[in-house]
């Protein structure tokens, strides 16, 4: 896997504090060593690209960050707090600050686009009025250019549209860190460029720091402020 930090000229890193720090992370499934001694840092306002071939443990890495998986060894610190020491309440608060775009999109297929977008909003930002919810849903959906799909089911959308709706669902709760799991995989080059563009827009508009995971070097080239390469779980190359 490759990890690389990209800081574009237009977007100087104002604050070199690191908001996410992974130190000597290891994770194995049975006899399968997936991550081995992996370390990386994400600075505030940065886009970090993690490259690696399929099956190298990229998804496992970011799932460890939000504790969907627990690592065997090593520490992960988000905003200075050790993720594995968090209480249930602390974990919930930490997850609220992190947006996770899943590899498969993970739209709830029994709900409409609107219900999908409302789901995290109602549960994370409790006590919003109906009006505020509707306004927010409309705003994020317009941001991803899909204003007219409000009442469609996910199964009626194309792959690219589904990715955008899940991106909208992720940014609707104003996360500070975005984790993108292969955002362009399985899309045609044009759509994948559009998604890359959208990721840049999200970063500019919502001032997020992001970790972008990909196996596509082309996609990685378009965005990095930094990048890093990961092979069998070891960070083997790092450069700006």
């Amino acid at each position: 896997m490759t990890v690389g930090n990209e800081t574009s000229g237009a977007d100087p890193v104002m604050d070199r504090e690191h908001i996410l720090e992974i130190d000597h992370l290891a994770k194995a499934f049975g006899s399968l060593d997936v991550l081995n001694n992996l370390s990386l840092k994400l600075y505030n306002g940065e886009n970090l690209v993690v490259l690696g071939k399929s099956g190298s443990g990229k998804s496992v890495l970011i799932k460890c960050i939000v504790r969907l998986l627990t690592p065997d060894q090593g520490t992960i610190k988000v905003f200075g707090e050790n993720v594995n020491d968090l209480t249930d309440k602390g974990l919930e608060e930490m997850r609220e600050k992190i947006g996770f775009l899943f590899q498969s999109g993970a739209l709830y297929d029994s709900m409409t686009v609107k219900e999908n977008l409302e789901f995290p909003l109602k549960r994370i930002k409790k006590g919003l009025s109906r009006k505020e919810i509707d306004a927010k849903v409309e705003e994020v959906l317009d941001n991803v250019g899909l204003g007219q799909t409000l009442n469609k089911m996910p199964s009626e959308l194309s792959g690219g549209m589904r990715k955008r709706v899940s991106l909208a669902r992720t940014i609707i709760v104003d996360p500070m860190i975005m984790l993108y799991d292969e955002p362009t995989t399985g899309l045609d080059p044009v759509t994948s460029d559009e998604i890359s563009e959208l990721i840049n827009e999200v970063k500019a508009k919502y001032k997020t720091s992001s970790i972008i995971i990909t196996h596509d070097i082309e996609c990685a080239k378009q965005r990095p402020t930094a990048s890093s390469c990961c092979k069998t779980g070891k960070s083997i190359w790092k450069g700006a």
Partner: protein
Amino acid sequence: MRKINPAYKKYVKLPNVKLPNVKQKAIKLSDKTIEKKELATIFFSELGEFFLFLFNTFKETFSREFEFKEFLRQCFQIGNRTLPLISVTGVVIGLVLTIQSRPVLAEFGAVSMLPGMVAVSIIREMGPVVTALICAGRIGSGMGAELGSMKVTEQIDAMEVSSTNPMRFLVVTRVLAATLMIPILVLYADALGILGSWAGANIKGDVPFVLFISQAFAAIGFDDLLPAVAKTIFFGAAIGLVGCYKGYTAGRGTESVGKAATSAVVLSSLFVILIDLIAVQITDML
């Protein structure tokens, strides 16, 4: 297609590595021992996992927050999925039971006992078991497939990172919905069964409805109805739990969704029959 970047080529090549033969031979030699050991391990780890799942479901059931809307939606889904099938089956059971037992009763000159006999056998055994088996097929597989595909496509993970406990939102609601709905569906099937039985008895048009029903009800006591309803509650809980368990613990990859659905049907049908066996023993002792 894009050209592969030379820097990236070494990763692309990797999958061609040949596996050494030694390992395959070693596995072959000790095939049988491994199988026996593994079967036992798999059985006990699965059993452990199931009890852990049971415990967690129980714990979340009594937590303060309850997803009422999702619970109602599940109740509706269960009814919606099974009602047509259960209606037809209910009527047919009553009809068939009547038509088949009539000649035998006639031989003993006991046709007047027909309504009571059929009603008791429908309420005690046929209604609950047949309805529950249909629900095991329809609801068990539905839950297995639905939760399985949610698991595989990371929807359960997505729920978990949006401040929602998926056990509470997905599992507890489904298990409770099944526990409530299956007894109701059974009572509905019982009623249709008795109706079907009257239709069967009345083929020649000589059995008044009111007479038939009053004779049927005269034969049924609370000691028939109560144990029957009690066991359907357990049928419902078992079907919900097994369906959810199989779906929730589905493996990775699309084929595990199918596996989850199939094994949910098999296991929940088995549970229904085992619970029925136990229930019959207990009722007998009382």
